[in-house]
């Protein structure tokens, strides 16, 4: 008999421990099926949540060896093969307050979701009495974002949230904001974007954990990017995030490549960069990371344009204006 072991993180409100449960290998089981089997055959005190058991209600996200999965939608065989082991560590999803065992608290997450200003504020030409009009193409633009089942997987391993959740929101909150920001029925998509700019939109680290973990193949990072683009296009170019991105774009068009020497002052402003980065710059020069002369030259005269810069500029302008 092949035995599978789940080492499950337990918590009873005061005490935390890890408990091992062994059960017979069964190729038909999902991770959720395994948890139910443990609860009903071994330990009724084990707590977890599950509802629809077919990947649409979002209840049953847990971590397997530190990575969020939707338990009902993940076959036991799949994770056993992924990790090449018959013992798996099961824990509650990350970046959530734990209530008990694998059960997490959604109360404050819902309050944070309110900051996306959810709910459509439709254009003036539409009404509750006659509904809205929308083209199939415009519906397609928001369809993916609406697949969100609020399972929390995208937040579980988000590097930014793990470090500090007070100046950043769960990726699903940004996705929620973006589904209204991009909706052709919205009177003003920027209502949602502006709020997200205030709440960490430019602080995403691009770590791609949200994109990787979403069981519905939504890309919250792309939603963050789409709202950054909207904010930028609407003239919200102040702040280090937008200025940093703008510096890349400017260099791309001017010479084809990034000018790293100019990047810092452009992002932070000359004064801030000069005062705040003094030690950093000194170290760079001291260790020969950057030649002083070379730096001065780059700062004053920029990179030499790449071969074929005219073609590159034509392509960029075509995309920006020419279509």
């Amino acid at each position: 008999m092949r035995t599978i072991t789940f080492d499950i993180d337990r918590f009873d409100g005061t005490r935390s421990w890890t408990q091992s449960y062994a059960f017979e290998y069964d190729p038909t089981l999902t991770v959720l099926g395994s948890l139910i089997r443990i609860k009903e055959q071994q330990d009724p005190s084990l707590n977890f949540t599950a509802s629809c058991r077919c990947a649409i209600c979002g209840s049953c996200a847990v971590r397997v060896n530190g990575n969020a999965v939707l338990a009902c939608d993940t076959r036991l065989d799949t994770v056993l093969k992924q990790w090449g082991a018959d013992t798996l560590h099961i824990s509650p999803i990350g970046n959530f307050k734990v209530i008990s065992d694998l059960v997490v608290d959604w109360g404050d997450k819902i309050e944070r979701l309110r900051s996306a200003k959810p709910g459509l504020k439709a254009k003036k030409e539409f009404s509750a009495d006659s509904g809205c009009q929308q083209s199939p193409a415009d519906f397609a633009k928001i369809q993916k974002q609406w697949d969100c089942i609020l399972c929390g997987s995208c937040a579980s391993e988000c590097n930014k949230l793990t470090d500090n959740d007070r100046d950043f929101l769960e990726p699903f909150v940004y996705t929620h904001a973006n589904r209204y920001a991009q909706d052709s029925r919205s009177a003003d998509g920027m209502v949602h974007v502006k709020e997200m700019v205030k709440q960490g939109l430019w602080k995403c680290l691009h770590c791609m954990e949200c994109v990787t973990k979403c069981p519905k193949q939504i890309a919250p990072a792309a939603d963050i990017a789409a709202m950054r683009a909207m904010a930028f296009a609407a003239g919200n170019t102040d702040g280090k995030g937008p200025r940093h991105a703008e510096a890349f774009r400017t260099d791309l068009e001017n010479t084809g490549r990034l000018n790293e020497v100019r990047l810092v002052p452009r992002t932070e402003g000359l004064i801030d960069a000069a005062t705040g980065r003094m030690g950093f710059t000194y170290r760079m020069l001291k260790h020969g990371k950057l030649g002083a002369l070379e730096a001065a030259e780059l700062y004053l005269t920029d990179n030499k344009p790449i071969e074929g810069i005219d073609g590159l500029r034509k392509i960029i302008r075509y995309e920006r204006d020419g279509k």
Partner: protein
Amino acid sequence: MSEDNKDDTSSLSRRTFIGACAAVPLTGAVADLAMASTADGTQGAAASSGAPSTMSFDVLVVGSGGSGLRAAVYAMRAGNLSVAVVSKTMPTRSATCMAEGGINGVISYPGQKDSLDSHAFDTVKGSDYLGDQDCIDFFVEKASEAVRETDFWGTPYSRAKDGRIDQRFMAGHQFPRTNYSADKTGHALLHSNFDYALGAGVKFLIDYQLLDVGVEDGVCTGVVMRNLKTGEIVPVRARAVIMATGGYTRIFWTRTSTPFIATGDGTAAALRAGLPFKDPEMIQFHPTGVAHGGVLITEAARGEGGYLLNNKGERFMQRYAPGKMELAPRDITARAIETEIAEGRGFGEGMTAYVLIDLRHLGREKIIERLPQIRHVGLMFENIDLIDQPLPIRSTAHYSMGGIDVINFHTMETAMPGLFACGECGCESIHGANRLGGNSLAAAMVTGKEAGIAAAAYAAKAQMPDDKALQRLADQWRDHFRENTARTKGTPFTEIRDRMAQVLWDGMGIYRTEKGLAATVEALRDLHAEYRTASIGNAGQVYNSAYTHYIEVGNLLTLARCAALAALDRRESRGAHTRVDYPKRNDKDYLHHNLVSLKGDELVLNQRPVTIVRFKPEERNY
């Protein structure tokens, strides 16, 4: 360093806090508040005297599915009322999100041939004439409004080329009138209503389980709940309570498509509070669910040309519907599958017996392109790839037509002042003996809205009830927890749950007989007695999900007993209720609703005539 180089540690939490306060204008606290002001600005008497305070709300919605969220939004819109939605899970885990097909509602556009009358007739006919026709007329008009309104609120609907909402055909309808959002309409509606509720400032009490409804002098005074996070049992006063707790098909446990949490808690609490349970025997079966667990295999599998096979490899539908074969209506297909199993041509035995659905002849490409979701369900639940192997399936309980007796479909009020019911847990009756595809989401939207409006109007005039009855009930429940969790011996209650499911599937499933139902009534009574001495296996306070489930199973047993009694008494076949011994509908004796009430531990059955307005009952043929 400029501002965004520092950790922004305060502003976000402050904003969130302010947002939450603004969301609850009269209550003025953020989470799990112990006290709430009321519409007229007074505070609970207990609080002002310094005694332990009782939570109170003007309108309390129990259940956070489609109808509950919509009720809450409409109660908020009345203005100046404290409104909360209480849910035993995070709000979006309900059955609503599982609905795929769409939401019915006639939409006018140039060249439209459909009409409200036509939708009403189809619904009446679909109900096998057990639906109340005045209610259905009201329903179809409001369903059309609901589709337009939810579009305006943000529901992402699939679109026709001209920009209007696209509509599809569903079985039993004369016209395409099912508005949809790809194959996730319920999910889209649930989440757009949730978003709208968040935007409107509806407060949510998450991880609270409903235990009972408080009644004083025949008036609803609120509910008793268990705070799952702490284990505390808390009385909650409310001027108006809206039940929106969904259906009870979980009585069949492993043979239902609905979520684990759909355990009829509100219906059972209403029953204990003295209200009748209307048409409890009317439960819809879907012909195809996976053998292990009952998750739906949608009609698309047969629509695309899948075969149903028995253990001899025969396409057995030849015997039952030689013309339509696998495309026969749901009820005929469901009965055919059960007959094959009963006559020994299925596989396996007991609750996990099955027949097969075979898609292999469609070819790999068509399966991947047209039926990816069905293939995925097969992989998850049976570890079977439909490209290579046929999949074990069997019929599965799908929808509860019966529910808390609603006596006024304009207001969704019950016979108890202050208690309203909407969605699958209420019975008005729109669906009668059989619900048409696409009418469940429509009913959730319509009944939720009307309940919200009426409950708010009622709450604005009603006094905040006192909490004496609630305190008494809360004490009883505290004893209940202590006594029942202290037991270390006895049958594990999950075993009783599984036996209940088996008894019901055999005796009150797709085929019903006098003998089988009589035995079911007896068996359920015994199981209910054994349940009271069963073991739970966890005495902890914090999120004791074993005890939560113990209460759920108790509710299911109560509701199942009502259903079996009504099914025994209905000696005819109508809609989803198929009596082998009475194969014909009998309008002379049974054109009535069954109303089951609880007196002590005994069940009492009464009847009420069906309202007929325009459509004279005739034979239901398609």
